[in-house]
């Protein structure tokens, strides 16, 4: 571990205003002011991987209320590449999005998408898939690309390994290397006044390593803090322990982002554990397979049982698709969605609108519940809706995690 890091005062291009804290759980409601507008926290961030949200126009995305979405550095580095990004003037201008962008550093994608990628102290080594030449992607490359992208929140390059890895020495090495790479990212970062660099807490499922990482990274005073290395197929109990442990050690006045999470249940619980920001491709990806997220879980509209169902995707949903025509919506029915879903690209667009809207509305409702100090009741209603009130079906990990923050999910 770097014993005495050369800490330089880190400018910040964000402000976090707290509005309320749940009196039972660790949930927080706040507003995050970023260079391209204010974001209500807790928030779900849809993933526009390649500078486009799966067929939606950015006005459709705005209509869902989205204030902050993701792009991927890995993908934008490949297409259109840094030269085009520089020529066009960054990713906001490339895609015509005037609200906030967050970019992932590309480390996770490198390791998960490129075969034969190996991590060394210098960076991620890989073979160019086209000609087999050995190549190296460094923390400096990642930050330089993210500077060209101009995203409002940029992520450090971290050494990502699966949380399920049995190799403890490797997990420790990855955590320590991520701290060293954070220093290199801070040094390489050219625009700290306009772009907020977030560190990424690593350490696998080892809570001691996570604690050490928190201490090291908090000392580096980045504008925001991410908890990484989760969403890798670990048990939900472990996931909750890591989030709970980290949030307990993080400063109150900084936003906390749990990367790659997740399903509505995961997010609702992680908010209770003190996390603020979430991203996941699942709501938009599953839309393309015909799955609509509703309060009872998900329904697959390709199922023939919906062919003659003339009710909206979700009764009372205020998304453009579900809202009745006399309220300015499209008034689409399940039967209609069944007709187009997974058959027409517009079927994917419409369900993507619904799912993103659903996630953002869920977060808005959670936030309001925290502000009104009734978040535990909100969580109970949320689980009751999914499991039709049958508490025997509630997932044990959620019951346990919530008990850990002072709430009994099974109570009436």
């Amino acid at each position, binding site marked *: 571990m770097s014993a005495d890091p050369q800490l330089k005062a880190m400018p910040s291009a964000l402000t976090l205003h707290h509005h309320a804290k749940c009196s039972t759980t660790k949930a927080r409601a706040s507003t995050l002011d970023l260079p391209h507008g204010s974001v209500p926290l807790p928030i779900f961030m849809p993933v526009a991987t390649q500078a*486009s949200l799966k067929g939606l126009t950015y006005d459709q995305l705005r209509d869902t209320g989205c204030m902050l979405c993701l792009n991927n550095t890995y993908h934008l580095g490949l297409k*259109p590449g840094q030269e085009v990004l520089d020529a066009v003037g960054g990713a906001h201008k*490339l895609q015509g999005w005037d609200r906030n962008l967050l970019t992932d550093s590309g480390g996770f994608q490198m390791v998960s998408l490129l075969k034969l990628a190996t991590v060394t102290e210098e960076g991620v080594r890989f073979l160019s898939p086209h000609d087999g*030449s*050995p*190549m*190296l992607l460094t923390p400096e490359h990642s930050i330089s690309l993210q500077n060209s992208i101009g995203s409002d929140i940029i992520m450090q390059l971290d050494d990502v390994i699966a949380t399920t890895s049995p190799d403890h020495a490797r997990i420790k090495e990855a955590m320590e290397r991520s701290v060293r790479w954070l220093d290199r990212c801070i040094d390489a970062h050219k625009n700290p006044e306009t772009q907020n660099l977030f560190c990424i807490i690593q350490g696998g499922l080892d809570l001691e390593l996570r604690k050490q990482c928190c201490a090291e990274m908090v000392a580096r005073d980045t504008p925001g803090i991410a908890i990484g290395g989760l969403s890798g197929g670990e048990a939900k109990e472990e996931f909750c322990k890591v989030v709970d442990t980290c949030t307990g050690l993080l400063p109150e006045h900084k936003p906390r982002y749990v990367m790659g999470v997740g399903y509505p249940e995961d997010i609702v619980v992680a908010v209770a554990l003190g996390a603020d920001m979430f991203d996941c*491709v699942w709501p938009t990806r599953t839309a393309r397979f015909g799955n609509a997220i509703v309060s009872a879980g998900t329904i697959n509209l390709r199922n023939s049982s919906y062919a003659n169902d003339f009710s909206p995707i979700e009764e009372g949903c205020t998304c453009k698709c579900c809202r009745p025509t006399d309220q300015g919506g499209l008034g689409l029915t399940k039967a209609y969605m069944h007709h187009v879903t997974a058959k*027409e690209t517009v079927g994917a667009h419409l369900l993507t609108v619904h799912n993103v809207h659903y996630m953002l509305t869920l977060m808005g409702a959670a936030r309001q519940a925290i502000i009104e100090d009734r978040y535990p009741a909100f969580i109970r209603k949320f689980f009751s809706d999914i499991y039709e009130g049958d508490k025997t079906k509630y997932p044990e990990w959620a019951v346990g995690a919530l008990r850990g923050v002072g709430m009994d999910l099974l109570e009436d």
Partner: protein
Amino acid sequence: MTKTTMDPSQSQSEKMTFSVLTSSAPIMAPRLGKLALTGRKTLSTPHYIPLTSRGTVPHIAHDMLRKETALNSLYIGLEDLGFRQLPAHQYLDSIRSLKPDIAIGLADIVYGREPGVKRRAKMVDRTHAFTQDALERLYGRSVADGQKSTTTAYFAPVLPLDNAQQSLYLDDLQDELKSHVSGLALYESSSLAQIPESLGALPRLLLSQPGGPHDLLRDVSLGGDLLTLPFVGECSDAGIALDFTFPVASDVNAKANGSASQPKALGIDLWSADTAKDVSALSEGCQCYACRKHHRAYFNHLLNAKEMAAWALLQMHNYHVMDVFFAGVRESIQRGTFEEDVLSFNHVYVSELPQRTGEGPRLRGYQLQAGPHKRGPRVYGRLDDVSQKFAESQSSVATPDTDASGLEHHGFAKKV
């Protein structure tokens, strides 16, 4: 049932009125019209009817279509709602239950080859019988008053054959069947020459395969009122932004009249690497949603990244170009300059749309439909197969398609 006497310049049913506004000869000449359907916005003709797939304009979601396009009519193929053998009477049942504003009558058409003499006779006989039967069952004496399909206007097919071959049928359309026929559906532009004068007041919907704007201008000059434009969707899928105006913009015209000028292309291939850093609009001064919000570089990126938004935005642009084109056509006819405007258009623009160079969308339902004019043999379960492919396809392409030097050039990584 009473026979209505018709004004020679006007045809009408309870549902629909079509008025020919220009006084010029109704056959084989460009003409202006107004198609008014009860409860719908009046359509000024010549105009186009956008083709749909499963009832949707491909790639344009409903909210964007309503807010950001001027599209106000749709062509829907009944086969999109479930393809199967369809007995003629079931087609009529569908008309009764779906209540389209306009229904195109069944025709016996041979696709993909020239029909022989016997086959042609059969085409006429069948189409004649389909039409007689349909009109009787939808509007005829035997149908109780409350049961008549008065909310649907019936367009009778005119076969892609010469006049003599279908004269019995056409005679009947002019006589016995006339009172229930609200319009004509034609399968090729040469059929426009065959319309008997007494049917001249009927709107003519052309289900031909125009190769581009030059063909459209020809069809309009022959008296086409409503046209279908399969090339628009094909261009959008191919990453081509249409880029032409009618009449030719004066500055473009001036340039074209300069010495040694090249004919102007009808569209821009956004797959071209030339557009990678080009932050100009698809067409200069274009007011469509795509041009107001985005630039060429974004389209080039979206196409390379195989993002669906490319096709959605291009559809909005390309249909907008056609809206402006048809508005220009109508003004030109109104002004009486249509003929010379066409000459000038043909002089300035190349006759062919740009060649497709890049990949289009993944195979989806609507791509299997070759349009209304080419209902070729279809295979059961095909749509299921497509939806399966769609479902299985992965969300994004995450493999670099450049070599190590390219990656280094992109700032992505460095060679070691």
